[in-house]
């Protein structure tokens, strides 16, 4: 690891991409720790104990029979986990192997699927694919629960090839029909809500998929699709779009696809390659992604030490366009600039304004005094620098700092230090959140 500079801005960059935004103390800590140990911490997270978080989560009063409860549960994890990349990958898989409450209508199934995605977060793509097709939420979401011999339902078969593995253009309609036949009988037990293979529903005839003929069942199809050249490239491109930049060069896709095949579909191998690649640390990559609403919310909660039971963020995520456990359709959440329109942007910025302006201890609020922690600032500039880095923004240009400095002095004459902090300090938190830099990663 010698290709990039290791500085605090780089640590913050890594924190935005491989985690949900690093807090100032974390940036300092990992900067001192150095790149090798930092990446080891992120990537080999099975060695990082997470029991404290699990124990704390277990005693939270979240009602897991409600939609709100399971969103609170996941937000708690994202904020407090010691394995941030695990949660980041779980979010990635939630957008890949989608299922949504809107159709599944069962919080237990959604939560179980979420745990399944977490178990495989940095695991093996083949194993994940083998498990996900038997997942009850998925079976309901893409109607495989009703896919039976003689009465095939092609929904899962089509999406498996179009969205989960190879991508459109790599299979025929005949393949869709044949794959649907292979998955017949994989359904759920309606009384227990668990996976059930109903052999009387299964089509035991021969099927021809992508030119290969046999008495294929579900596992056989996964084992046929995962090693396809198209799947490697499809997944490589998707990883690069999530973690590097939106329009990765073909050479980059090829290189990551090679890792996919050489590692026998190891997610950890792919992420290791990404997080040690020149591309990841390049100027082109820095700040090149739009923060999704979950990243924005979790970063805000973590860096500004927001106190709440997470419930206020459930509807906020929805109005920002990312209702967790409820993606709009099987393609998952659209990324990039699709997150940003006039109303979602107002929701994003107003969230921070409302947090900063809440001086009570109810709802979601920032304890400003605790956040500042007794620091005194020698100058307005020093205070602004501190706040910017606290909120995860490093190296803001002097030109952009100028309006912030001007803001603090505008109308501040005669204010006591306390009043100045209460008015301009809280105002600055809001204004920093209006910077496009706060909405990019």
């Amino acid at each position, binding site marked *: 690891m010698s290709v990039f500079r290791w500085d605090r801005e780089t640590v913050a960059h890594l924190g935005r991409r491989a985690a949900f935004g690093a807090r100032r103390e974390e940036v300092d800590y990992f900067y001192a720790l150095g790149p090798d140990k930092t990446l080891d911490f992120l990537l080999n997270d099975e060695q990082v104990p997470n029991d404290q978080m699990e124990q704390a989560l277990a005693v939270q009063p979240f009602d897991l029979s409600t939609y709100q409860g399971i969103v609170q549960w996941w937000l708690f994890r994202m904020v407090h986990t010691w394995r941030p990349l695990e949660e980041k990958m779980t979010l990635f898989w939630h957008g890949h192997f989608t299922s949504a409450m*809107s*159709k599944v209508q069962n919080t237990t199934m959604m939560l179980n699927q979420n745990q399944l995605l977490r178990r495989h977060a940095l695991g093996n793509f083949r194993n994940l694919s083998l498990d996900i097709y038997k997942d009850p939420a998925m079976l309901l979401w893409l109607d495989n629960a009703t896919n039976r011999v003689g009465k095939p339902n092609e929904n899962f078969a089509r999406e498996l090839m179009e969205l989960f593995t190879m991508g459109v253009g790599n299979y025929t309609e005949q393949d869709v029909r044949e794959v649907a036949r292979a998955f017949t009988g994989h359904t759920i037990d309606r009384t227990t809500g668990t996976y059930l293979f109903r052999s009387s529903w299964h089509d035991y005839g021969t099927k021809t998929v992508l030119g290969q003929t046999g008495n294929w069942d579900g596992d056989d199809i996964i084992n046929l699709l995962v090693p396809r050249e198209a799947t490697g490239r499809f997944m490589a491109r998707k990883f690069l779009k999530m973690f590097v930049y939106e329009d990765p060069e073909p050479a980059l896709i090829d290189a990551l696809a090679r890792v996919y095949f050489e590692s026998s579909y190891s997610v950890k191998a792919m992420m290791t390659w990404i997080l040690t690649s020149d591309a990841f640390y390049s100027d082109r990559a820095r*700040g*090149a*992604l*739009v923060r999704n609403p979950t990243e924005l919310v979790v970063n805000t909660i973590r860096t500004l030490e927001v106190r709440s039971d997470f419930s206020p963020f459930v*509807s906020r995520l*929805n*109005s920002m*366009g990312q*209702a967790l456990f409820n993606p*709009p*359709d099987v*393609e998952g959440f659209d990324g*990039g*600039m*699709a997150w*940003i*329109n*006039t*109303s979602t*942007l*107002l*929701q994003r*910025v*107003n969230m921070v*304004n*409302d947090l*900063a*302006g809440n*001086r009570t201890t109810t709802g979601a609020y920032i304890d400003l005094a605790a956040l500042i922690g007794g620091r005194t600032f020698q100058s307005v500039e020093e205070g602004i620098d501190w706040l910017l880095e606290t909120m995860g923004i490093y190296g803001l240009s002097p*030109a*952009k700092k*100028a*309006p*912030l400095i*001007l*803001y603090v002095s*505008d*109308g501040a004459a005669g204010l006591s230090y306390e009043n100045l902090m*209460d*008015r*301009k300090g*809280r*105002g600055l938190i*809001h*204004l920093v959140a*209006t*910077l*496009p*830099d706060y*909405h*990019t990663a």
Partner: protein
Amino acid sequence: MSITRRQFIGGITLTAIGTFGPGLFKGWEPRLAHGAAVPEKILLVLQLSGGNDGINTVVPFTDSAYAAARPTLAIPESQLLPLDGKLGLHPSLANFKTLFDEGKLAVIQGIGYPNGILSHFSSMDIWHTASPEGVQARGWLGRYLDLHPPGSENALFSVNIGSQVPKAFIADTVSTPSIASVSSYQFRTDPRYPVDRPSQVNTFLNLENLSLSDTFPRANIAGVSVNAYTTSEAVKAAAGSYTPSVTYPTTSLAQGLLLIAQIIAGNLGTRIFYVSTGGYDTHNNQANTHANLLTTLSEAVNAFQRDMEAKGLADRIVILTISEFGRRVAENGSRGLDHGTASVQFTIGTRVRGGLYGAYPSLSKLDGNGNLVFTTDFRSSYATVLEGWLGADAGAILGGTFPNLGFLT
């Protein structure tokens, strides 16, 4: 109502003005320069979520199968508001009866699509994407927006009233804002210090203007930020200066329509509105629930229609209702109705050619699930408004030719 670029920039004090990217206000500014003068046609899609029972909305009272299939839910002929010798409106739709008599309301009968799907989610998807084959990721209005009709650079060209953009608006190149209320669509500042607001707003605009010369995506976000602020101020001003000519009911549907009236009267350049109202999934004890829903609907629409007429704006507006499906012909064991297929659709406006369109499906020749067999493809009504109202290429948007139903003058 008009904002000029000059007024807008007037608040900015630093040297940031020199850094405006080329074409920043492309859309918003030309819109204001030219748009307000041209009274453009407006489409308002009103969604009845849950699957409206078309049979009890427009009742085929001469079909003997009607009373037989609905022992407790059939509405006696004496209570219906007759449209002709065979069909009568639900008694809660007195306002719709008046609009029908005035020639401003058209009923499209038997609306649906082949092999009707009984899942809310999947069937709504089909209505939104206008793709019963499920091959379209974009919405039908989104595909219209992707053709960049004149004026569509305006950030408020299409507006959803609510909190989540319906799939109908999903486009490749344009994103549609959702406005839940005037108060939520605001650039808020600390309520404790109103005196500090101008200072915060100026600082914010300065920061965004400085960011316009950044690289992707910061510059793009900054552009949307400026648009968000400008449009939110415009919506607030339009709402604040508006005096309705009628009293709108307090229902959220009526209040949503009032917000639409405010935006239309404010000349903000919006041509497509979308508003939803729910609760139509009447699986049990339908009678009262459905009566209340239709009262809410007809009172809200009537208030809006009369208000727009009084303001001289009615000629610009056509309302089209949609629902994901109708309901089963026969009632279930809970005095309710399970999911069905074909339903009725309303279209309302002074430029609507009132009357009955399409054919009412038979209540005795049903499909295998006991549901109506549709007679009118919903894409025909989409084609009618796309072509006949918005002047768009319906064939290109819908991916096929569908007959113009002729309900627009």
